[in-house]
């Protein structure tokens, strides 16, 4: 691969200054599981490489008052092992556990999953489903918070500026009684890109009425996005087979309308329906936390 200058600061301030001065010619190295292969194939040829793994402020899961902050360079393994995430967001833990194999999970980071914004991302749809906010920092503007859904432009592209660093992901702690489900379908049981995945979070009233729901399918859309039309069908209603079937039909209608009919639709459309139905029923059958 083409050589570059390598910078590995310990402090956020230094990192922000470094990219502010270099912008487009600099790439940020987090887990490296996507970036390093791209460097090797010379799909990207940066002049500067900023290693952010040594920046303390970017690491780890913090339990704040109403929310949880996941540092951008928190690895998938660290997510799986985090008590806080297991308690509040099992959806993210399950999604992180479905990534690659142990070596990839030991290096790959939640921040990288967001920034790469690959259509087959496993954790990103969960963050979208949980209405995560991104903590972005730059030398110029300091810290700003944006909804994750707002920065996902299209596959492999975000609106995060080149002088900005994703420093953390903030997620509101779920309201009591929130349940979630995740399923990934791959061509094999490990080291597989998602053929499809699905992240669902929902809450029911004591009488069973769905009072909150969030649905994000993965690997079918250019970017992960909540299925608002499907969610509104379900909101305020009690789940019945007819309702869930109608929601499943709506889900694939939205997907096909957005993503278009591609060669894989013949398979993915019916299978997404099936997976949606079974994840929904599984989540509905679960006792709330």
């Amino acid at each position, binding site marked *: 691969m083409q050589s570059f200058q390598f910078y590995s600061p310990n402090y956020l301030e230094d990192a922000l200054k470094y990219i502010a001065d270099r912008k487009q010619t600099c790439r940020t190295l987090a887990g490296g599981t996507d970036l390093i292969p791209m460097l090797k194939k010379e799909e990207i040829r940066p002049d500067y490489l900023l290693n952010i793994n040594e920046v303390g402020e970017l690491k780890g899961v913090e339990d704040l008052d109403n929310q949880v902050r996941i540092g951008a360079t928190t690895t998938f393994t660290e997510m799986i092992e985090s008590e806080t995430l297991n308690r509040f967001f099992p959806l993210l833990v399950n999604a992180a556990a479905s990534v690659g*194999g142990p070596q990839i999970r030991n290096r790959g980071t939640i921040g990288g999953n967001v920034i790469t914004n690959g259509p087959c991302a496993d954790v990103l749809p969960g963050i979208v489903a949980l209405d995560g906010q991104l903590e972005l920092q730059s030398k110029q503007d300091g810290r700003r918070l944006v909804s994750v859904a707002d920065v996902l432009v299209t596959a492999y592209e975000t609106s995060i500026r080149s002088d900005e660093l994703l420093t953390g992901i903030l997620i509101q702690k779920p309201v009591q009684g929130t349940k979630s489900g995740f399923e990934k379908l791959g*061509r094999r049981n490990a080291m597989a890109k998602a053929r499809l995945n699905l992240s669902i979070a929902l809450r029911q009233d004591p009488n069973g009425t769905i009072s909150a729901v969030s649905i994000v399918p993965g690997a079918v859309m250019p970017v992960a996005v909540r299925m608002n039309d499907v969610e509104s069908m379900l909101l305020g209603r009690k789940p019945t087979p007819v309702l869930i079937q109608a929601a499943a039909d709506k889900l694939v209608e939205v997907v096909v309308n957005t993503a278009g009919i591609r060669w894989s639709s013949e398979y993915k459309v019916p*299978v997404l329906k099936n997976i949606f139905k079974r994840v929904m029923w599984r989540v509905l059958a679960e006792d709330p936390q």
Partner: protein
Amino acid sequence: MKKRGIGIGSMFYGIGYGFSRQDIGAATVEICEDGSVIVRSGEVDYGQGSDTIFCQIIAEELGVDYAEIKLITADTLTTPNAGPTSASRVTYVTGKAMMKAATEVRETMREVAEEKLGMQDLMFANGQVFSMSHPEKNISFARLAKATHLAGRSVVATAWQDITTKDVDPETGQGDAYSTYAWASQIAVVEVDTETGKIEVLRVVAAHDVGKAINPKNVEAQIEGGVATGLGYALEEQILINKGIVQNTTLSEYMVPTSMDVPVIESHIVEVPALEGPYGAKGVGEPALIPTAPAILNAIANAVGVRVTALPANLENLHRLIREQENNNKDKS
């Protein structure tokens, strides 16, 4: 819905090249003065375990510890041509050459020992040469080696094993195509997710006739590896070619089974001796994987009633067949 099914696959496999292709094995055994042993053979061990099996055969014939044997293989300057490692032929052909070469050296040494000990009923075992009727009449293999050297007798023997067959008749294909055959059957248990087309292979039980298992654990290892390859063949592996161009050029796109895809594999070894093989042994390398894919395909048919006729039985192919079947059933009802 998840549905389980059971299936069986059987096979026979002509060991060696067959139909008149040259099929030879060779080995040279040399005894050092201290009784240690050097064996040279052009045969290749690329992981399947033939080096170990050769050492076992030599050790058996000479009655020495297999760790005493230094094996030099697969070097065109220093080892005799033993043919390729392929066609599940190595144990059967070169294994036999090993046995022959060791026997020849041992018989020379026996003559020396008979003279020294004055006994005829000699046995080579545990690094000793002794009379079976009078075990107190004995000599260590090392001392006998020295004595054989001093007696000016040959301590080197090269043996050749040729199993080249006749060709089959070009018009009828009739003839004795192979020197011997291996036989095997395997049972697979699968679970099919009818909603996604995903298949889990839950169990494989394999029974293989290997003639004689020279190293049973190694036979199992061959079977287990073969089953995993057969599983990948049945379910997922496929080089995608579009107008002559390979489309999947990485191991994330060409997917071989991982540790999480391979089930518990139970092996059963059957030993129906082959006349020409060492101790009756014949090959298992290729037979190990051949029955797996058919067993899985038959198990799928047993589970969900659809027959995959175009491999692989991947998510899309299986899901399509299941849906076609559902539609057919609807049409009928």
